[in-house]
């Protein structure tokens, strides 16, 4: 049977309450076991402007927001004008004809006007149109009214019977009006029988922290990372996580380091600008050998940039963060579920190797939402705190304990302050095995060299524990698409499209673990490829340059986007075609819609 794949777009101004119908539809879909991907294109504005929510659902995993819309619900004229031209035959457009006029629509596009005045004559406010549209769209999708009624009832429970009745009434009016006046879709919304969960990336990161046993979380609000703070603030209490909003990001990283040194797993999140302010602190954590995790949710830069738009533009900042060489781990989760799974993985590594760990997310991942199989959200993950003395009561007698004892692995057991017999000082100045400064009276180049090498030795140990990347797809592909982090889904979908629509066989290499990099394995894998195209969401090809610095691999072509909006599958398809056709080595797609 052909794959079921439906995309609904709801557009309007900030303040028009787009979120609610979006959430309701999402809930109806996942309750039927349908997969879901939601991307909300919005702006750094509280009222007005233009917001456009793309909700895409399917009976198979949804990898990206896709390329086409099947249903458009414009809540104002602006949104109608921006999107109607994108609607193709077979699609439907639902709108309040009292206020919104359609322009010219393509053949086969079903215009579904309804009058709020008629259907809800004595209800005030703009929001009612959303509810009517909800009822109508469900009818077009051949869904019985019950699920909507249930959710509305639940939603307005606190507001009392009257409100429930009113909303259910309005929704039913829309439902029945659609039945009478609009042509339903030739298919009806499937129900796979199982139930899926529905997660935002930031929520997944926060839950990942909870799963990892984070006990201290602090942050300074910064879009698009603030969702992590909000989740932590809301759930920290019952989870036993201390949550603090701090005066600035410098305070954040240093407070997290203090908490981590005292024995807590400590985490913080920010975006590029805040990360810049944390860079000195991260180096100090590596020098004192204190494990801490920092999340950088990238947004379009430089500087303040475009706070509500996505980019993969901080890779070099994060790799270069802070003066001097020091051990650290940098990882870029590839899906929303992977956000959840990556956090405990990273904590086990930073605890074992006593160094900072950085998670590179971006707006697409962190503020995107996706369906997840609840069974995948495992909170009983293995926890490895590494060699810590005094974590569970006092340790063995610590005669002659040396905090920075030299050894093969570069890992010296750390003792928590408060533990009898292990008194020591950790320092951001260079120090000897005893933690005694060698920056002043006792300067000693040989000791400096030895302790610097000890710290850096950790990188080999870390690499040996990281899962090497693998090629996904046919070994005999004409081209390999290479991406990193959040672009995994859209690249996979582009590869499907290339095969289905263009007869081009491409395979895929997505990099998750960035530092240390599998600089042996990656070139080995790519040496099998006929052509290599690197796809990334920034101007300068930050990953392409980094990959080259570690492996000398030079890609045959690049697909890049840096206009603030994420890739859509067809952008990559066009790019690959252009590059394979030799018409371009670097393809930059144009984003069609003005969101």
């Amino acid at each position, binding site marked *: 049977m052909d794959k079921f794949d439906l995309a609904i777009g709801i557009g309007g101004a900030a*303040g028009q309450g787009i979120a609610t119908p979006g959430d309701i539809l999402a809930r109806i879909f996942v309750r039927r076991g349908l997969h879901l991907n939601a991307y909300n294109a919005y702006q*750094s*504005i*509280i*009222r*007005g*402007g233009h917001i456009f929510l793309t909700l895409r659902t399917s009976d198979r995993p949804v990898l990206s927001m896709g390329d086409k819309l099947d249903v458009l619900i414009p809540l104002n004229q602006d949104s109608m004008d921006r999107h109607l031209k994108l609607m193709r035959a077979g699609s439907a457009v639902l709108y309040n004809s009292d206020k919104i006029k359609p322009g010219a629509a393509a053949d086969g596009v079903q215009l579904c006007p309804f009058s709020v005045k008629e259907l809800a004559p004595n209800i005030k406010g703009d929001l009612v149109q959303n509810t009517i549209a909800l009822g109508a769209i469900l009818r077009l999708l051949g869904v019985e009214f019950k699920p909507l009624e249930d959710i509305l009832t639940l939603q307005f429970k606190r507001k009392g019977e009257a409100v429930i009745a009113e909303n259910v009434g309005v929704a039913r009016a829309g439902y029945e009006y659609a039945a009478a006046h609009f042509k339903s879709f030739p298919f009806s919304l499937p129900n796979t029988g199982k139930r899926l969960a529905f997660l935002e990336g930031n929520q997944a990161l926060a839950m990942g922290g909870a799963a990892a046993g984070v006990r201290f979380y602090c942050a*300074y*609000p*910064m*879009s698009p990372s*603030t969702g992590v*703070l*909000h989740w932590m*603030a*809301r759930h920290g*209490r019952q989870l036993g996580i201390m*949550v603090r*909003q701090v*005066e*600035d*990001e410098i305070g954040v990283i240093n407070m997290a380091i203090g908490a981590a040194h005292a024995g807590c797993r400590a985490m913080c999140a920010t975006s590029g*600008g805040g990360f810049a302010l944390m860079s000195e602190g991260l180096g100090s954590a590596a020098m004192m050998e204190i494990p801490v995790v920092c999340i950088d949710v990238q947004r379009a830069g430089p*500087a*303040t940039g475009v706070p509500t738009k996505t980019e993969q533009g901080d890779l070099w900042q994060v790799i270069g963060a802070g003066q001097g060489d020091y051990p650290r781990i940098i990882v870029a989760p590839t899906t929303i579920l992977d956000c959840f799974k990556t956090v405990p993985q990273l904590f086990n590594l930073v605890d074992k190797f006593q160094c900072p760990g950085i998670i590179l997310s971006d707006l697409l991942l962190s503020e995107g939402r996706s369906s997840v199989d609840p069974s995948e959200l495992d909170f009983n993950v293995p926890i490895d705190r590494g060699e810590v003395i005094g974590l569970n009561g006092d340790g063995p007698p610590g005669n002659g304990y040396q905090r920075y004892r030299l050894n093969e692995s570069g890992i010296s057991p750390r003792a928590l302050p408060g533990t009898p017999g292990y008194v020591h000082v950790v320092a951001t100045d260079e120090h000897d095995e005893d933690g005694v400064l060698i920056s002043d009276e006792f300067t000693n180049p040989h000791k400096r060299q030895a302790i610097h090498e000890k710290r850096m030795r950790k990188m080999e140990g870390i690499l040996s524990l990281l899962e090497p990347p693998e090629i996904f797809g046919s070994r005999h592909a004409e081209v390999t698409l290479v991406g990193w982090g959040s672009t995994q889904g859209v690249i996979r979908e582009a590869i499907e499209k290339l095969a289905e629509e263009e007869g081009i066989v491409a395979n895929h290499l997505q990099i998750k673990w960035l530092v240390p990099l599998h600089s042996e394995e990656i070139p080995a894998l790519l040496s099998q490829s006929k052509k290599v195209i690197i796809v990334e969401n920034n101007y300068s090809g930050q990953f392409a340059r980094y990959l080259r610095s570690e492996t000398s691999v030079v890609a045959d072509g690049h697909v890049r986007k840096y206009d603030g909006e994420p890739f859509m599958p067809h952008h990559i398809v066009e790019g690959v075609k252009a590059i394979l056709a030799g018409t371009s080595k670097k393809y930059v797609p144009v984003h069609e819609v003005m969101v």
Partner: protein
Amino acid sequence: MSLSMMETEAKSRSGAEAKAERPKLTVKDFKGKVDPDWCPGCGDFGVLAALKQALVELELQPHEVITISGIGCSSNLPGYINAYGMHTLHGRALAVATGAQLANHKLKVIVTGGDGDGYAIGGNHFLHTLRRNVDLTYLVMDNQIYGLTTGQISPTSIKGMKTKSTPFGSVENPINPIPLAIAGGATYVARGFTGQQKHLVEIIKGGIQHRGFALIDVFSPCVTYNHDNSHEFFKARVKRLEEMGHDPTDFHAAMDKAYLW
């Protein structure tokens, strides 16, 4: 709380200086390239209006003035007024403004920002600008919340305030910028309220005329994310010190009044 104005080292500019005959302008002449996209009812509209009015009354021309802000709803102000402007990084407006003022003393430098921008991440520049006493006028649109990031506590949020980052209530004591500024050595400290335009215009004019650093902390309600400190809340509580017969040069009195809120 109290609307106040305190000026030590009272060295206001002789109105004369500004009086060299120059085109008479109106507030329309200060209209910016685009209209504010603040929420309807946002207090910041009132600060923008009062600032334009003050500039008109001081007979300043757009090119003589530069507004410098950080990042926040309030910090978008430079885009909404016809004057030179800098929209710098979050928290850094005072540092940038100090550099601009030191480099060109002729500029009338007006720093416009929010309570988070100025008192949280910008706190260190605030602390040291107070004692440096550079000729800047600092307008803080104090709404006791982070607006642009959709509602978290700020350093002026009252203890117990429920926000997205403190769903169970803030556990921290707020700072009171007025006594802090006085203790920090500020030579002109005033508090205004967007609900009292005439007074606001006066203290802004006073601040611009004051030679040295002038802090003007304005209660500027955020109608979207701060329902604890609404327009009505302030209306009910604000007093005008001048009306209360306060002597702007008495330090102790100032300290007392500073704590009235």
